[in-house]
């Protein structure tokens, strides 16, 4: 056991694991301070995820968009870009999928893929803007994407209202031919809202891995992420790679939006503030070590937290504890330098 912990090669797993443990510990401490029994709270959480088939289905539903926004943020990270704009790309993608679903009617085999493609393209476009701003004008992508998040939020709220068939709060329903939902999946999980989106997310995770690890293009992206100057010297087109990377990142986030708008629901609605899917993606990417498989795992973990938090609130634990735990995990994952130093000291002492 000790050998496992102290082997430096295992740090890749140990640091995220420790972050999760510390995150849950922080959640427990907050519950204790506010006079709630953490065992009861976490018990409710586990029941909220595995209690019955329906809850299990809802867990997968909640995890699906998180995996995709996680992939979006991670793709940026691998290229040395911080795509804090997944939130905006998510919103733009969600709306575009619905717009395709509402405005035209086609056979399902064409309509559904078209709606998904439209969402990905819309997200890619929303990622293209900060990409080109960075490549051409050296505008920092963090600032540009924050601004674009809000522009996206307000622009899409406006678009939702003017779409034919919309009310002042939401769009009309999409044609069933553009709907991701599935009677079959829903019926085997006790009539949850489980839809085909999880397949899309898993394919996306595979594509992520394939692009990053197995293509020359991915190699170039990673190389730009490590060292821009060296990559330029090696003859890579750094600026072009930055734009492409932001676009692919945006495409993942746009797809995540479609998971909600044409998967979990069948309409888009006007929102007053962000729903945090994009920001949660930062947590998912960080914890998943920016790797395809890691993101799927951490997406399911955070999905469990979110899905289970509703059950916790029934057990008199306010459901915001989930967000607190997530934030703590991000904080601890960001502290990996501190955690590594701590492990190093521990190693020395044991020796």
């Amino acid at each position, binding site marked *: 056991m000790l050998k496992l912990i102290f082997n430096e090669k295992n740090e890749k797993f140990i640091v995220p694991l420790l972050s999760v443990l510390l995150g849950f510990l922080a959640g427990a401490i907050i519950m204790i301070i506010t006079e709630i029994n953490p065992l009861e709270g976490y018990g409710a959480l586990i029941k909220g995820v595995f209690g019955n088939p329906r809850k299990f289905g809802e867990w997968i539903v909640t995890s699906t968009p998180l995996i995709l926004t996680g992939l979006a943020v991670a793709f940026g990270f691998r290229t040395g870009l911080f795509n804090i704009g997944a939130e905006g790309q998510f919103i733009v993608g969600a709306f575009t999928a619905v717009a395709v679903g509402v405005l035209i009617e086609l056979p399902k085999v064409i309509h559904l893929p078209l709606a998904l493609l439209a969402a990905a393209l819309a997200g890619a476009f929303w990622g293209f803007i900060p990409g080109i701003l960075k490549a051409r004008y050296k505008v920092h992508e963090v600032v540009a994407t924050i601004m674009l998040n809000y522009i996206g939020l307000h622009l899409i709220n406006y678009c939702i209202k003017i779409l034919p068939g919309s009310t002042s709060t939401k769009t009309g329903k999409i044609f069933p031919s553009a709907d991701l939902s599935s009677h079959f999946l829903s019926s085997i999980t006790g009539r949850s809202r489980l839809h085909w989106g999880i397949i899309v997310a898993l394919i996306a995770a595979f594509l992520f891995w394939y692009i990053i690890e197995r293509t020359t293009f991915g190699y170039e992206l990673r190389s730009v992420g490590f060292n821009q100057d060296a990559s330029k010297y090696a003859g890579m087109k750094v600026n072009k790679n930055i734009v492409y990377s932001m676009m692919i990142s945006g495409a993942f986030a746009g797809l995540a939006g479609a998971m909600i708008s044409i998967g979990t629901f069948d309409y888009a609605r006007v929102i007053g503030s962000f729903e945090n899917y994009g920001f949660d993606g*930062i947590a998912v990417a960080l914890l998943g070590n920016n790797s395809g498989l890691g993101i799927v795992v951490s997406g399911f973990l955070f999905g469990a937290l979110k899905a289970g938090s509703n059950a916790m609130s029934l057990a008199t634990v*306010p459901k915001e504890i989930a967000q607190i735990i997530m934030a703590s995990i991000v904080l601890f994952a960001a502290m990996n330098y501190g955690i590594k130093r701590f492990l190093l000291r521990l190693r020395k002492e044991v020796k």
Partner: protein
Amino acid sequence: MDFMQFIGIIIPLTLTSAAPIISTSIGGLFSERSGVINIGLEGLMVIGAFTSATVTVLIEGSLQGASPWIGILAGIIASGLFSIIHAYVSINLRANQVISGTAINLLAGGLTIYLCEIIFKQQRTLAFLYGIKKEDIIGLSKIPVLGDFLFKGVHVTSYWVILIVCIAWYIIYKTPFGLRLRAVGEHPGAADSMGINVYRMRYIGVILSGMFAGLGGSIMVLTQDIQFTYSTIHGTGFIALAALIFGKWHPFGVLGAGIFFGFSEALGIVAYQIPFLSKLPQEFFLAFPYVLTIIALIAFAGKSVGPRSAGKPYEKGAR
């Protein structure tokens, strides 16, 4: 509505909308000038707004009119303390400052609503009776014409904030402390070699940012709202960040940018009464400051404006 009437409405409204933006932005200025990027301004505002609203609600039964002012003080202290997390993680542990700031935002959003549930058994605080009321500024409101527009029926906090900008300018550009703060943000290695304690200066910068963001959040909830909810701050912290960039990291630039963004917000509120503006959708005004910031960023392109070492952890002995 004639023009004078419009001016009479828009000026106080602009001052009210601008105050939280400017205060928070000045906070961000202290942090970034010391070399620590603070994306967590939004979260720090949320903490300030929650604390001041809660304290005001809890003590107004016994202290009445004095309670919002004590609430503000509590908000400033709470946000100042909360910002220490960001300081510790990004200065001592050398974490990515943007990630740490994002975590602060997430944490603040969750923690405040959680505490609302614990204290008030609902997702928001109770409504407070004693917010900050509009009043006439003694003396200045007697000035003919100008007094009517600028100093009648305004929130006194707006003028506090303008005073704070002047003080911040003096501190940053005219005192040894300010010089050290800027040095640490530009070239921490050089500052260190001159005997300046880089970590300490950065801690001060971040904690000041927390306190000013707390003030901004407190002012916002007590002047523009009747209680604290999850949407009380709705992105003002990010507008403050935009104002900081738009104002080129200079206190008076921040003041100008803040007033401009406040004006655009105020315009959005009264637009439905103005013939040629009422045709534009509300969303246009909401998105306006952000679009403008992107345009400004393009205009600044290639010129080095921000503090040079902002975002880079300082490591003693690193080359």
